[in-house]
């Protein structure tokens, strides 16, 4: 192995500035430009109460925000949603982002894409496309997404992506009902021409929490999934990179969430709220500032919601005196809120949390119960799948 000539970025502050603050310059932003989406995935990370189209930021708002992002030192913008191509001004936004030097990524379900739209995005300077898949074959994939014919359209969009010489990442969200198809999903991603595959196990908050009974895998299933990924990584070295996120219910320690709350990343909601992560609106009682009222520079430094869980000073025990607190920042605030009722608690995914054993046992019993019926994500608070449990 050659020595590594490029390390992943750590906390980076402004040139010449001391690292005195518990956060740096933001590296990347997730721009959720709309919550509208033709799909209805039962694990969608959008909040249960979604933003109607009438509340969305205008084109002019977004173009100003994109300029502010570049001034603030943001390097990458991920256009996401909902389904970002549902907005007609997406090409305009990508153009502006390219102009001001941002690295642009499109995170899409690909169902509403046309070849012309994709080609216009490529001309506007789009750097990368990420297409989500729900399974390895139409029957399951279309059932999970709640959209007939969706899977076939994704494969078609992937073909256009590669024809236009745009690089492709395939994103596969895994859960009990599609884990068995992982080997075929990996082969399919290679055939789609992906240079990267993200295998992400569902994170349980928002819609996924509502659907946990139908989604939670067993520890044995997760182990099998890990073995599949490891074998594929060895086999596909140099052909396709595989990023893998395990469900942390079954881990000893939680994931470091978003690189730390408000540390190097933020999210902008369709109505302009600045959030430390895409799921933060599931936490009630936090006041999020909007780009409609304040500049991004002000918000990044002063937003009470961003400052609430920055660094380590807010931590209770067992995190406060734990040797790993700088490594995982106490895990995920959204998961802590969802499972303990307070975002200021240790993430129960951690084995040191007093609630860990209970959470783990609950997860296991849900994984064994035979509930398969989904509650589909939609603007009216969810619709239960028809048919037997």
């Amino acid at each position: 192995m050659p020595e590594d000539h490029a390390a992943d970025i750590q906390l980076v502050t402004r040139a010449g500035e001391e690292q005195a603050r518990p956060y740096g310059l933001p590296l990347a932003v997730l721009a959720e430009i709309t919550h509208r989406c033709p799909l209805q995935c039962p694990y969608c990370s959008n909040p249960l109460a979604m933003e109607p189209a009438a509340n969305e930021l205008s084109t002019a708002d977004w173009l100003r925000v994109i300029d502010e992002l570049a001034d603030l030192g943001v390097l990458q913008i991920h256009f996401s949603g909902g389904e970002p191509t549902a907005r007609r001004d997406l090409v305009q936004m990508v153009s502006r982002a390219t102009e001001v030097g941002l690295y642009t990524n499109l995170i899409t379900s690909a169902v509403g894409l046309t070849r012309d739209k994709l080609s216009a995005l490529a001309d506007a300077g789009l750097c990368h496309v990420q297409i989500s898949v729900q399974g390895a074959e139409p029957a399951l994939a279309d059932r999970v997404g709640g959209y007939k014919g969706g899977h076939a359209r994704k494969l078609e969009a992937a073909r256009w992506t590669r024809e236009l010489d745009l690089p492709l990442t395939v994103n596969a969200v895994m859960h009990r009902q599609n884990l068995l198809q992982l080997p075929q999903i990996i082969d399919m991603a290679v055939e789609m021409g992906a240079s990267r595959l993200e295998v992400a196990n569902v994170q349980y908050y928002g819609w996924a929490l509502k659907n946990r009974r139908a989604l939670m895998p067993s520890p044995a299933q997760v182990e099998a999934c890990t073995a599949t990924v490891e074998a594929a990584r060895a086999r596909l070295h140099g052909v396709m990179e595989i990023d893998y996120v395990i469900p942390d219910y079954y881990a000893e320690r939680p994931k470091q969430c978003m690189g730390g709350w408000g540390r190097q990343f933020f999210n902008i909601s369709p109505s302009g709220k600045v959030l430390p992560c895409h799921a933060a609106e599931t936490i009630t009682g936090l006041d999020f500032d909007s780009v409609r009222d304040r500049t991004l520079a002000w918000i990044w430094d002063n937003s009470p919601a961003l400052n609430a869980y920055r660094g380590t000073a807010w931590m209770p025990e067992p995190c406060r005196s734990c040797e790993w607190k700088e490594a995982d920042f106490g895990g995920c605030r959204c998961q802590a809120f969802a499972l303990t009722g307070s975002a200021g608690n240790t993430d129960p995914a951690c084995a040191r949390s007093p609630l860990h054993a209970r959470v783990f046992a609950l997860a296991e019993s849900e994984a064994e119960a035979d509930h398969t019926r989904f509650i589909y994500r939609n603007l009216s608070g969810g619709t239960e799948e028809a048919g037997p449990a």
Partner: protein
Amino acid sequence: MRPTVAADSVPRLPRHVKLRHDKARDRWLILVPERVLVPDDTAVAVLSRVDGARSVRDIATDLAQTYQAPVDVILADSVALLQDLADKGFLAVTEAPHA
């Protein structure tokens, strides 16, 4: 198929890999999907010469002159560095037509 980097390969940064000097942080960065990499000085020296026209040998010869170092050592280092990037999907290569 796994791309192989050799002395006569012509490397090129694909669309999803951007080498950029970032003014706010005053450092060179490599932007790739979902990640930001901080290249060391050697990587910057090599990558800033990658233009889709010059071969790895051309680049090493240029570096050997600039840094007054033996060309075979630099060539071996450059091949290893570029192969590593290619394996991660961050570099495209074509074979040079034989002169």
